[in-house]
Protein backbone atom coordinates (compact mmCIF):
# COMPACT_ATOMS: atom_id res chain seq x y z
CA UNK A 1 0.00 0.00 0.00
CA UNK A 2 1.23 3.46 -0.81
CA UNK A 3 1.79 5.45 2.37
CA UNK A 4 1.38 9.18 2.60
CA UNK A 5 5.10 9.98 2.35
CA UNK A 6 5.46 7.88 -0.75
CA UNK A 7 2.34 9.44 -2.20
CA UNK A 8 3.82 12.91 -1.67
CA UNK A 9 7.16 11.85 -3.15
CA UNK A 10 5.48 10.35 -6.18
CA UNK A 11 3.31 13.33 -6.92
CA UNK A 12 5.85 15.97 -6.01
CA UNK A 13 4.92 19.13 -4.21
CA UNK A 14 3.88 20.84 -7.44
CA UNK A 15 1.10 18.32 -8.05
CA UNK A 16 -0.05 18.59 -4.46
CA UNK A 17 -0.55 22.30 -4.96
CA UNK A 18 -3.04 21.57 -7.72
CA UNK A 19 -4.87 18.93 -5.68
CA UNK A 20 -5.27 20.44 -2.26
CA UNK A 21 -7.28 23.56 -1.53
CA UNK A 22 -5.10 26.38 -0.12
CA UNK A 23 -6.62 26.36 3.35
CA UNK A 24 -6.10 22.62 3.77
CA UNK A 25 -2.46 22.88 2.75
CA UNK A 26 -1.85 25.74 5.14
CA UNK A 27 -3.30 23.70 7.97
CA UNK A 28 -1.40 20.47 7.29
CA UNK A 29 1.93 21.17 5.62
CA UNK A 30 4.29 23.14 7.85
CA UNK A 31 6.55 25.43 5.87
CA UNK A 32 9.65 27.37 6.92
CA UNK A 33 11.67 29.81 4.85
CA UNK A 34 15.28 30.24 5.99
CA UNK A 35 16.93 33.42 4.75
CA UNK A 36 20.72 33.19 4.51
CA UNK A 37 22.81 30.03 4.21
CA UNK A 38 25.77 30.77 6.46
CA UNK A 39 26.73 28.81 9.57
CA UNK A 40 23.43 29.50 11.33
CA UNK A 41 21.04 29.45 8.35
CA UNK A 42 22.42 26.24 6.84
CA UNK A 43 22.22 24.50 10.23
CA UNK A 44 18.63 25.64 10.82
CA UNK A 45 17.54 24.39 7.38
CA UNK A 46 19.23 21.03 7.95
CA UNK A 47 17.83 20.40 11.43
CA UNK A 48 14.29 21.50 10.57
CA UNK A 49 14.35 18.64 8.04
CA UNK A 50 16.38 16.10 10.04
CA UNK A 51 14.48 16.47 13.30
CA UNK A 52 11.06 16.52 11.62
CA UNK A 53 11.84 13.33 9.65
CA UNK A 54 11.47 15.47 6.53
CA UNK A 55 7.86 16.37 7.30
CA UNK A 56 8.49 20.12 7.39
CA UNK A 57 8.93 21.90 4.06
CA UNK A 58 12.11 24.01 4.19
CA UNK A 59 13.31 26.51 1.61
CA UNK A 60 16.76 28.04 2.04
CA UNK A 61 17.22 31.35 0.23
CA UNK A 62 20.66 32.85 -0.34
CA UNK A 63 21.86 35.65 -2.59
CA UNK A 64 25.12 33.84 -3.34
CA UNK A 65 25.87 30.60 -5.12
CA UNK A 66 28.34 29.51 -2.43
CA UNK A 67 29.25 30.19 1.19
CA UNK A 68 32.77 31.41 1.93
CA UNK A 69 33.84 30.59 5.48
CA UNK A 70 35.07 33.34 7.78
CA UNK A 71 36.52 30.67 10.04
CA UNK A 72 40.10 29.90 8.90
CA UNK A 73 40.14 32.90 6.56
CA UNK A 74 43.00 34.56 8.49
CA UNK A 75 45.28 31.73 7.31
CA UNK A 76 44.21 32.46 3.74
CA UNK A 77 45.19 36.12 4.30
CA UNK A 78 48.71 34.99 5.20
CA UNK A 79 48.84 32.65 2.18
CA UNK A 80 49.25 29.53 4.30
CA UNK A 81 46.07 27.95 2.94
CA UNK A 82 44.39 28.15 -0.49
CA UNK A 83 41.15 30.16 -0.63
CA UNK A 84 39.30 27.03 -1.80
CA UNK A 85 39.42 25.61 1.77
CA UNK A 86 36.82 28.27 2.63
CA UNK A 87 34.30 27.31 -0.07
CA UNK A 88 31.13 25.47 0.91
CA UNK A 89 27.79 24.95 -0.81
CA UNK A 90 24.32 23.68 -0.03
CA UNK A 91 24.10 20.74 -2.45
CA UNK A 92 24.50 18.17 0.37
CA UNK A 93 21.64 19.78 2.30
CA UNK A 94 19.48 19.35 -0.81
CA UNK A 95 20.68 15.79 -1.47
CA UNK A 96 20.79 14.43 2.10
CA UNK A 97 17.91 16.31 3.68
CA UNK A 98 15.65 17.53 0.88
CA UNK A 99 16.14 21.21 1.66
CA UNK A 100 14.83 23.33 -1.22
CA UNK A 101 17.43 25.81 -2.37
CA UNK A 102 16.57 29.15 -3.91
CA UNK A 103 19.06 31.69 -5.24
CA UNK A 104 17.76 35.22 -4.73
CA UNK A 105 17.36 38.08 -2.29
CA UNK A 106 14.48 38.29 0.17
CA UNK A 107 13.06 41.78 -0.28
CA UNK A 108 9.88 41.58 1.80
CA UNK A 109 8.35 39.56 4.61
CA UNK A 110 4.73 40.43 5.36
CA UNK A 111 1.64 38.76 6.81
CA UNK A 112 0.42 36.08 4.40
CA UNK A 113 -3.30 36.18 5.23
CA UNK A 114 -5.17 32.93 4.55
CA UNK A 115 -2.23 31.46 2.59
CA UNK A 116 0.16 31.25 5.54
CA UNK A 117 1.41 33.27 8.49
CA UNK A 118 4.10 35.00 6.42
CA UNK A 119 4.56 35.88 2.77
CA UNK A 120 8.20 36.05 1.69
CA UNK A 121 9.07 37.86 -1.53
CA UNK A 122 12.26 36.75 -3.28
CA UNK A 123 13.82 38.93 -5.99
CA UNK A 124 16.80 39.00 -8.30
CA UNK A 125 17.80 42.54 -9.11
CA UNK A 126 14.53 44.47 -9.44
CA UNK A 127 12.54 41.43 -10.60
CA UNK A 128 10.41 39.40 -8.20
CA UNK A 129 11.21 35.75 -8.93
CA UNK A 130 8.87 34.07 -6.48
CA UNK A 131 6.62 34.48 -3.48
CA UNK A 132 6.71 31.88 -0.68
CA UNK A 133 4.09 31.38 2.02
CA UNK A 134 5.11 29.82 5.30
CA UNK A 135 4.29 29.38 8.97
CA UNK A 136 7.73 30.44 10.21
CA UNK A 137 10.57 32.59 8.86
CA UNK A 138 14.16 32.16 10.05
CA UNK A 139 16.42 35.10 9.25
CA UNK A 140 20.16 34.45 9.21
CA UNK A 141 21.52 37.35 7.16
CA UNK A 142 24.77 37.80 9.08
CA UNK A 143 26.03 41.35 9.48
CA UNK A 144 26.38 44.50 7.45
CA UNK A 145 29.20 46.95 7.99
CA UNK A 146 28.72 50.57 8.99
CA UNK A 147 30.05 53.25 6.66
CA UNK A 148 33.32 54.89 7.76
CA UNK A 149 33.58 58.62 6.98
CA UNK A 150 36.24 59.79 4.57
CA UNK A 151 38.70 62.21 6.26
CA UNK A 152 38.54 64.72 3.37
CA UNK A 153 34.74 64.75 3.29
CA UNK A 154 32.94 63.12 6.23
CA UNK A 155 29.69 63.08 4.23
CA UNK A 156 31.28 60.51 1.91
CA UNK A 157 32.00 56.92 2.93
CA UNK A 158 35.63 55.85 2.55
CA UNK A 159 36.32 52.61 0.63
CA UNK A 160 37.10 50.00 3.29
CA UNK A 161 39.09 46.78 3.09
CA UNK A 162 37.84 44.79 6.10
CA UNK A 163 38.11 41.17 4.91
CA UNK A 164 35.67 40.46 7.77
CA UNK A 165 33.25 38.79 5.42
CA UNK A 166 35.37 36.23 3.60
CA UNK A 167 35.48 36.37 -0.18
CA UNK A 168 37.20 38.69 -2.63
CA UNK A 169 38.38 40.97 0.19
CA UNK A 170 40.20 38.03 1.80
CA UNK A 171 42.39 37.41 -1.24
CA UNK A 172 42.78 41.14 -1.84
CA UNK A 173 44.18 41.57 1.66
CA UNK A 174 46.41 38.52 1.11
CA UNK A 175 47.80 40.07 -2.08
CA UNK A 176 48.34 43.48 -0.43
CA UNK A 177 50.15 41.84 2.48
CA UNK A 178 52.38 39.85 0.13
CA UNK A 179 53.21 43.00 -1.89
CA UNK A 180 53.81 45.21 1.17
CA UNK A 181 57.21 47.00 1.21
CA UNK A 182 59.82 45.24 3.40
CA UNK A 183 59.75 48.04 5.98
CA UNK A 184 56.02 48.81 5.66
CA UNK A 185 53.36 49.20 8.32
CA UNK A 186 50.17 47.10 8.40
CA UNK A 187 47.42 48.84 10.38
CA UNK A 188 44.49 46.77 11.69
CA UNK A 189 41.56 48.43 13.45
CA UNK A 190 39.12 46.59 15.73
CA UNK A 191 35.57 47.87 16.38
CA UNK A 192 33.87 48.05 19.76
CA UNK A 193 32.26 44.80 20.91
CA UNK A 194 29.91 43.21 20.03
CA UNK A 195 31.39 42.29 16.69
CA UNK A 196 31.67 39.05 14.72
CA UNK A 197 34.13 36.52 16.23
CA UNK A 198 35.55 38.04 19.44
CA UNK A 199 39.05 36.47 19.17
CA UNK A 200 39.19 36.93 15.37
CA UNK A 201 40.89 40.34 15.11
CA UNK A 202 43.58 39.39 17.67
CA UNK A 203 44.12 36.15 15.80
CA UNK A 204 44.56 38.12 12.57
CA UNK A 205 47.04 40.46 14.30
CA UNK A 206 49.07 37.44 15.43
CA UNK A 207 49.18 35.57 12.12
CA UNK A 208 50.01 38.78 10.20
CA UNK A 209 52.79 39.56 12.72
CA UNK A 210 54.06 36.00 12.31
CA UNK A 211 53.98 36.34 8.52
CA UNK A 212 55.90 39.63 8.71
CA UNK A 213 58.47 38.18 11.11
CA UNK A 214 59.19 35.36 8.69
CA UNK A 215 58.87 37.22 5.38
CA UNK A 216 59.43 40.94 6.03
CA UNK A 217 61.53 41.28 9.19
CA UNK A 218 61.74 45.07 8.81
CA UNK A 219 57.95 45.53 8.68
CA UNK A 220 55.52 45.86 11.56
CA UNK A 221 51.83 45.80 12.47
CA UNK A 222 49.91 48.35 14.52
CA UNK A 223 46.66 47.16 16.14
CA UNK A 224 44.20 49.94 17.00
CA UNK A 225 41.47 48.57 19.28
CA UNK A 226 38.31 50.58 20.01
CA UNK A 227 37.93 48.44 23.14
CA UNK A 228 39.79 49.24 26.33
CA UNK A 229 41.45 45.83 26.39
CA UNK A 230 41.69 42.52 24.52
CA UNK A 231 38.11 41.19 24.45
CA UNK A 232 38.78 37.42 24.20
CA UNK A 233 41.55 34.94 25.08
CA UNK A 234 43.31 37.74 26.90
CA UNK A 235 46.08 35.71 28.42
CA UNK A 236 47.20 33.97 25.23
CA UNK A 237 46.91 37.06 23.04
CA UNK A 238 48.65 39.30 25.60
CA UNK A 239 51.49 36.80 25.74
CA UNK A 240 51.67 36.63 21.94
CA UNK A 241 51.65 40.42 21.57
CA UNK A 242 54.32 41.04 24.20
CA UNK A 243 56.58 38.00 23.79
CA UNK A 244 56.12 36.30 20.40
CA UNK A 245 55.64 39.58 18.53
CA UNK A 246 57.17 42.05 20.98
CA UNK A 247 59.50 43.33 18.24
CA UNK A 248 57.04 43.87 15.37
CA UNK A 249 53.56 44.39 16.83
CA UNK A 250 52.20 47.44 18.66
CA UNK A 251 48.85 47.01 20.43
CA UNK A 252 47.03 50.26 21.23
CA UNK A 253 43.68 49.92 23.04
CA UNK A 254 41.17 52.76 23.33
CA UNK A 255 41.61 53.86 19.69
CA UNK A 256 38.24 54.63 18.08
CA UNK A 257 38.27 55.11 14.29
CA UNK A 258 36.85 58.49 13.28
CA UNK A 259 37.75 58.72 9.60
CA UNK A 260 39.80 57.09 6.88
CA UNK A 261 41.75 58.23 3.81
CA UNK A 262 41.74 55.44 1.24
CA UNK A 263 41.34 54.68 -2.45
CA UNK A 264 39.40 51.63 -3.64
CA UNK A 265 41.76 48.92 -4.85
CA UNK A 266 44.79 50.56 -3.21
CA UNK A 267 46.43 48.94 -0.17
CA UNK A 268 47.59 52.00 1.75
CA UNK A 269 45.87 54.85 3.52
CA UNK A 270 45.54 56.86 6.69
CA UNK A 271 43.27 56.46 9.65
CA UNK A 272 42.32 59.10 12.22
CA UNK A 273 41.41 57.81 15.69
CA UNK A 274 40.18 59.29 18.94
CA UNK A 275 42.15 58.22 21.99
CA UNK A 276 39.41 57.14 24.40
CA UNK A 277 39.69 56.26 28.08
CA UNK A 278 36.99 55.38 30.61
CA UNK A 279 36.31 57.77 33.46
CA UNK A 280 35.40 56.69 37.00
CA UNK A 281 31.75 56.28 35.92
CA UNK A 282 32.62 54.07 32.94
CA UNK A 283 31.93 56.84 30.45
CA UNK A 284 34.14 57.36 27.40
CA UNK A 285 36.39 60.40 27.59
CA UNK A 286 38.29 61.53 24.48
CA UNK A 287 41.86 62.42 25.38
CA UNK A 288 43.09 63.40 21.92
CA UNK A 289 43.48 62.41 18.30
CA UNK A 290 46.08 60.41 16.39
CA UNK A 291 46.73 59.75 12.72
CA UNK A 292 48.29 56.49 11.53
CA UNK A 293 49.73 55.98 8.08
CA UNK A 294 49.63 52.48 6.63
CA UNK A 295 51.13 50.69 3.65
CA UNK A 296 48.30 48.18 4.14
CA UNK A 297 45.19 49.51 5.86
CA UNK A 298 42.76 46.89 7.21
CA UNK A 299 39.79 48.55 8.91
CA UNK A 300 37.11 46.34 10.49
CA UNK A 301 34.17 48.73 10.83
CA UNK A 302 31.44 48.36 13.47
CA UNK A 303 28.63 46.15 12.23
CA UNK A 304 24.96 45.47 12.75
CA UNK A 305 22.41 42.84 11.69
CA UNK A 306 22.06 42.31 7.93
CA UNK A 307 19.75 44.41 5.75
CA UNK A 308 16.60 42.29 5.93
CA UNK A 309 16.57 42.57 9.74
CA UNK A 310 16.92 46.35 9.49
CA UNK A 311 14.26 46.63 6.76
CA UNK A 312 11.74 44.62 8.78
CA UNK A 313 12.47 46.79 11.87
CA UNK A 314 13.51 43.78 13.91
CA UNK A 315 16.66 45.44 15.31
CA UNK A 316 16.84 47.66 18.36
CA UNK A 317 19.18 50.62 18.97
CA UNK A 318 22.17 48.25 19.18
CA UNK A 319 21.66 47.31 15.53
CA UNK A 320 20.93 43.66 16.38
CA UNK A 321 17.62 41.80 16.75
CA UNK A 322 16.32 41.11 20.28
CA UNK A 323 15.03 37.52 20.53
CA UNK A 324 13.69 35.03 23.05
CA UNK A 325 16.76 32.93 23.84
CA UNK A 326 14.72 29.71 23.98
CA UNK A 327 13.59 29.95 20.37
CA UNK A 328 15.39 32.92 18.79
CA UNK A 329 11.93 34.24 17.94
CA UNK A 330 11.80 38.01 17.59
CA UNK A 331 10.45 39.81 20.65
CA UNK A 332 9.36 42.81 18.56
CA UNK A 333 5.58 43.33 18.66
CA UNK A 334 3.75 41.93 15.64
CA UNK A 335 6.70 39.81 14.50
CA UNK A 336 5.93 36.48 16.17
CA UNK A 337 6.85 33.59 13.92
CA UNK A 338 9.96 35.41 12.66
CA UNK A 339 13.18 34.06 14.16
CA UNK A 340 16.59 35.74 13.93
CA UNK A 341 19.66 33.54 14.40
CA UNK A 342 23.44 33.80 14.05
CA UNK A 343 25.40 37.04 14.15
CA UNK A 344 22.27 39.14 13.45
CA UNK A 345 20.57 38.24 16.73
CA UNK A 346 21.06 40.08 20.01
CA UNK A 347 21.79 37.65 22.81
CA UNK A 348 24.61 37.30 25.33
CA UNK A 349 26.13 34.58 23.14
CA UNK A 350 29.25 35.49 21.16
CA UNK A 351 28.80 36.12 17.44
CA UNK A 352 30.69 33.19 15.91
CA UNK A 353 30.17 30.21 13.61
CA UNK A 354 30.34 27.36 16.11
CA UNK A 355 27.83 28.95 18.48
CA UNK A 356 25.73 30.19 15.52
CA UNK A 357 25.37 26.53 14.54
CA UNK A 358 24.09 25.70 18.05
CA UNK A 359 21.69 28.67 18.20
CA UNK A 360 20.22 27.42 14.92
CA UNK A 361 19.56 23.98 16.45
CA UNK A 362 17.88 25.60 19.46
CA UNK A 363 15.72 27.60 17.04
CA UNK A 364 14.89 24.56 14.87
CA UNK A 365 13.95 22.50 17.94
CA UNK A 366 11.68 25.29 19.23
CA UNK A 367 9.95 25.66 15.83
CA UNK A 368 9.32 21.90 15.63
CA UNK A 369 7.93 21.91 19.17
CA UNK A 370 5.67 24.83 18.21
CA UNK A 371 4.43 22.83 15.20
CA UNK A 372 3.30 20.13 17.64
CA UNK A 373 1.81 22.69 20.06
CA UNK A 374 4.65 22.45 22.60
CA UNK A 375 6.50 25.32 24.24
CA UNK A 376 10.26 25.73 23.67
CA UNK A 377 12.65 23.86 25.95
CA UNK A 378 12.92 26.20 28.93
CA UNK A 379 16.65 26.07 29.63
CA UNK A 380 18.65 25.30 26.49
CA UNK A 381 22.43 25.29 26.43
CA UNK A 382 24.78 26.55 23.76
CA UNK A 383 28.49 26.16 23.53
CA UNK A 384 31.31 27.97 21.92
CA UNK A 385 34.47 26.13 21.03
CA UNK A 386 37.11 27.52 18.77
CA UNK A 387 40.76 27.28 17.97
CA UNK A 388 42.75 30.42 17.15
CA UNK A 389 46.05 30.28 15.27
CA UNK A 390 48.74 32.43 16.89
CA UNK A 391 51.32 31.61 14.20
CA UNK A 392 51.69 29.24 11.25
CA UNK A 393 52.25 26.32 13.64
CA UNK A 394 50.74 27.27 17.02
CA UNK A 395 47.11 27.62 18.06
CA UNK A 396 45.18 28.33 21.22
CA UNK A 397 41.58 27.50 22.10
CA UNK A 398 38.65 29.24 23.75
CA UNK A 399 35.52 27.53 24.97
CA UNK A 400 32.40 27.99 27.09
CA UNK A 401 29.10 26.28 27.82
CA UNK A 402 26.26 28.78 28.08
CA UNK A 403 23.21 28.05 30.21
CA UNK A 404 20.01 29.93 29.48
CA UNK A 405 18.99 31.07 32.94
CA UNK A 406 17.37 33.83 34.90
CA UNK A 407 19.55 36.41 36.58
CA UNK A 408 18.49 36.44 40.25
CA UNK A 409 19.10 40.19 40.59
CA UNK A 410 17.54 41.62 37.42
CA UNK A 411 15.11 38.78 36.64
CA UNK A 412 16.31 38.84 33.01
CA UNK A 413 16.84 35.57 31.15
CA UNK A 414 20.12 35.23 29.33
CA UNK A 415 22.89 32.86 28.31
CA UNK A 416 25.61 32.70 30.97
CA UNK A 417 28.87 30.73 30.79
CA UNK A 418 29.32 29.00 34.14
CA UNK A 419 31.76 26.37 35.34
CA UNK A 420 29.37 24.10 37.29
CA UNK A 421 32.21 22.72 39.41
CA UNK A 422 33.95 25.94 40.49
CA UNK A 423 31.02 28.32 39.96
CA UNK A 424 33.23 30.75 38.05
CA UNK A 425 31.77 32.55 35.04
CA UNK A 426 33.18 33.38 31.62
CA UNK A 427 34.88 31.46 28.84
CA UNK A 428 37.97 29.30 29.40
CA UNK A 429 41.12 29.62 27.31
CA UNK A 430 43.95 27.16 26.76
CA UNK A 431 46.81 27.20 29.25
CA UNK A 432 49.19 27.90 26.36
CA UNK A 433 49.28 27.69 22.55
CA UNK A 434 50.57 24.43 21.04
CA UNK A 435 51.22 22.60 17.79
CA UNK A 436 48.73 19.97 18.97
CA UNK A 437 46.00 22.62 19.10
CA UNK A 438 47.02 23.79 15.61
CA UNK A 439 46.48 20.26 14.33
CA UNK A 440 43.18 19.89 16.20
CA UNK A 441 42.06 23.21 14.70
CA UNK A 442 41.99 21.57 11.26
CA UNK A 443 39.94 18.65 12.59
CA UNK A 444 37.56 21.04 14.35
CA UNK A 445 37.07 23.12 11.20
CA UNK A 446 36.33 20.12 8.98
CA UNK A 447 33.95 18.59 11.55
CA UNK A 448 32.06 21.84 12.08
CA UNK A 449 31.69 22.49 8.36
CA UNK A 450 30.56 18.90 7.67
CA UNK A 451 28.01 19.14 10.49
CA UNK A 452 26.73 22.44 9.09
CA UNK A 453 26.72 21.81 5.34
CA UNK A 454 25.95 18.11 4.90
Amino acid at each position, binding site marked *: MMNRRHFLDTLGVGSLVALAPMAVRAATLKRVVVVGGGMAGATAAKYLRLWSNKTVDVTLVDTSTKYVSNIMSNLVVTGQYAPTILDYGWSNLVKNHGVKLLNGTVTQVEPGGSLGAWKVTVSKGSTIITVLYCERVVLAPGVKFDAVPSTANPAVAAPILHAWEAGTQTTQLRDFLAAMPPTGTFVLTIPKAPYRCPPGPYERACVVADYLKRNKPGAHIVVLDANQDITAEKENFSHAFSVMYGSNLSYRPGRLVKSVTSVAGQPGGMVVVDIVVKDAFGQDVVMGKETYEAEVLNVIPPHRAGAIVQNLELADATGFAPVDGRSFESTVAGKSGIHVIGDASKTSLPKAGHVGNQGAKICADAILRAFSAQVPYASPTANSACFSPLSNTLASWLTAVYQYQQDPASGAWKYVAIDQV*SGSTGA*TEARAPSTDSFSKMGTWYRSLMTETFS
Partner: protein
Amino acid sequence: MRTWLGWVVLAGSLWSQSAAAQVVNDGRLLASGCFQCHGTSGLKGGFGTLAGVGKEDMLNKLNNDMRAKDARSSIMNPHARGYTSYQLSLIADYFSKLPKP
Protein backbone atom coordinates in the same frame (compact mmCIF):
# COMPACT_ATOMS: atom_id res chain seq x y z
CA MET B 1 -19.31 4.95 21.69
CA ARG B 2 -16.33 5.81 23.82
CA THR B 3 -16.77 5.16 27.55
CA TRP B 4 -15.66 7.42 30.37
CA LEU B 5 -12.87 4.98 31.17
CA GLY B 6 -11.87 4.99 27.49
CA TRP B 7 -11.38 8.75 27.54
CA VAL B 8 -9.23 8.51 30.68
CA VAL B 9 -7.06 5.80 29.09
CA LEU B 10 -6.77 7.83 25.87
CA ALA B 11 -5.87 11.01 27.76
CA GLY B 12 -3.34 9.05 29.81
CA SER B 13 -1.69 7.56 26.76
CA LEU B 14 -1.53 10.93 24.98
CA TRP B 15 0.01 12.47 28.07
CA SER B 16 2.63 9.74 28.40
CA GLN B 17 3.43 9.91 24.68
CA SER B 18 3.99 13.64 24.76
CA ALA B 19 5.98 13.35 28.00
CA ALA B 20 8.16 10.66 26.42
CA ALA B 21 8.72 12.76 23.30
CA GLN B 22 9.61 15.70 25.51
CA VAL B 23 12.31 13.77 27.41
CA VAL B 24 13.84 12.43 24.22
CA ASN B 25 13.87 15.89 22.70
CA ASP B 26 15.44 17.50 25.76
CA GLY B 27 18.35 15.06 25.66
CA ARG B 28 18.69 15.49 21.91
CA LEU B 29 18.74 19.27 22.10
CA LEU B 30 21.36 19.27 24.88
CA ALA B 31 23.42 16.59 23.09
CA SER B 32 23.28 18.50 19.81
CA GLY B 33 25.93 20.80 21.28
CA CYS B 34 28.37 17.91 20.84
CA PHE B 35 27.59 17.51 17.12
CA GLN B 36 29.89 20.33 15.90
CA CYS B 37 32.97 18.26 16.82
CA HIS B 38 31.57 14.73 17.22
CA GLY B 39 29.35 14.75 14.14
CA THR B 40 25.61 15.00 13.52
CA SER B 41 23.86 12.59 15.95
CA GLY B 42 27.32 11.64 17.27
CA LEU B 43 28.50 10.15 13.96
CA LYS B 44 31.33 11.01 11.54
CA GLY B 45 32.85 13.84 13.57
CA GLY B 46 36.61 14.31 13.70
CA PHE B 47 36.85 13.82 17.48
CA GLY B 48 35.32 10.40 17.97
CA THR B 49 31.94 8.74 17.62
CA LEU B 50 29.47 9.16 20.49
CA ALA B 51 26.49 7.27 19.00
CA GLY B 52 25.95 4.03 20.85
CA VAL B 53 28.44 4.69 23.65
CA GLY B 54 27.16 3.18 26.90
CA LYS B 55 25.67 5.66 29.33
CA GLU B 56 27.82 4.62 32.28
CA ASP B 57 30.99 4.62 30.16
CA MET B 58 30.30 8.10 28.90
CA LEU B 59 29.40 9.47 32.33
CA ASN B 60 32.52 7.92 33.84
CA LYS B 61 34.69 9.54 31.23
CA LEU B 62 32.94 12.91 31.50
CA ASN B 63 33.06 12.93 35.29
CA ASN B 64 36.44 11.37 36.04
CA ASP B 65 38.61 12.20 33.03
CA MET B 66 37.22 15.65 32.28
CA ARG B 67 34.94 17.22 34.89
CA ALA B 68 37.36 16.47 37.74
CA LYS B 69 40.35 17.89 35.85
CA ASP B 70 41.82 21.37 35.45
CA ALA B 71 39.58 23.37 33.12
CA ARG B 72 42.42 24.82 31.07
CA SER B 73 44.40 21.66 30.41
CA SER B 74 42.13 20.22 27.68
CA ILE B 75 39.28 21.70 25.63
CA MET B 76 36.88 18.93 26.73
CA ASN B 77 37.33 19.73 30.42
CA PRO B 78 35.43 23.03 30.35
CA HIS B 79 32.68 21.31 28.35
CA ALA B 80 32.23 18.58 30.96
CA ARG B 81 32.41 21.23 33.69
CA GLY B 82 29.91 23.49 31.93
CA TYR B 83 26.90 21.17 32.23
CA THR B 84 25.06 20.12 35.38
CA SER B 85 25.19 16.45 36.36
CA TYR B 86 21.56 16.14 35.33
CA GLN B 87 22.29 17.60 31.89
CA LEU B 88 25.27 15.27 31.43
CA SER B 89 23.07 12.32 32.29
CA LEU B 90 20.44 13.37 29.70
CA ILE B 91 23.20 13.77 27.10
CA ALA B 92 24.78 10.38 27.88
CA ASP B 93 21.35 8.76 27.88
CA TYR B 94 20.58 10.21 24.43
CA PHE B 95 23.81 8.94 22.84
CA SER B 96 23.53 5.51 24.50
CA LYS B 97 20.17 4.94 22.80
CA LEU B 98 21.47 5.63 19.29
CA PRO B 99 22.58 2.57 17.31
CA LYS B 100 26.33 1.93 17.23
CA PRO B 101 27.70 2.58 13.74
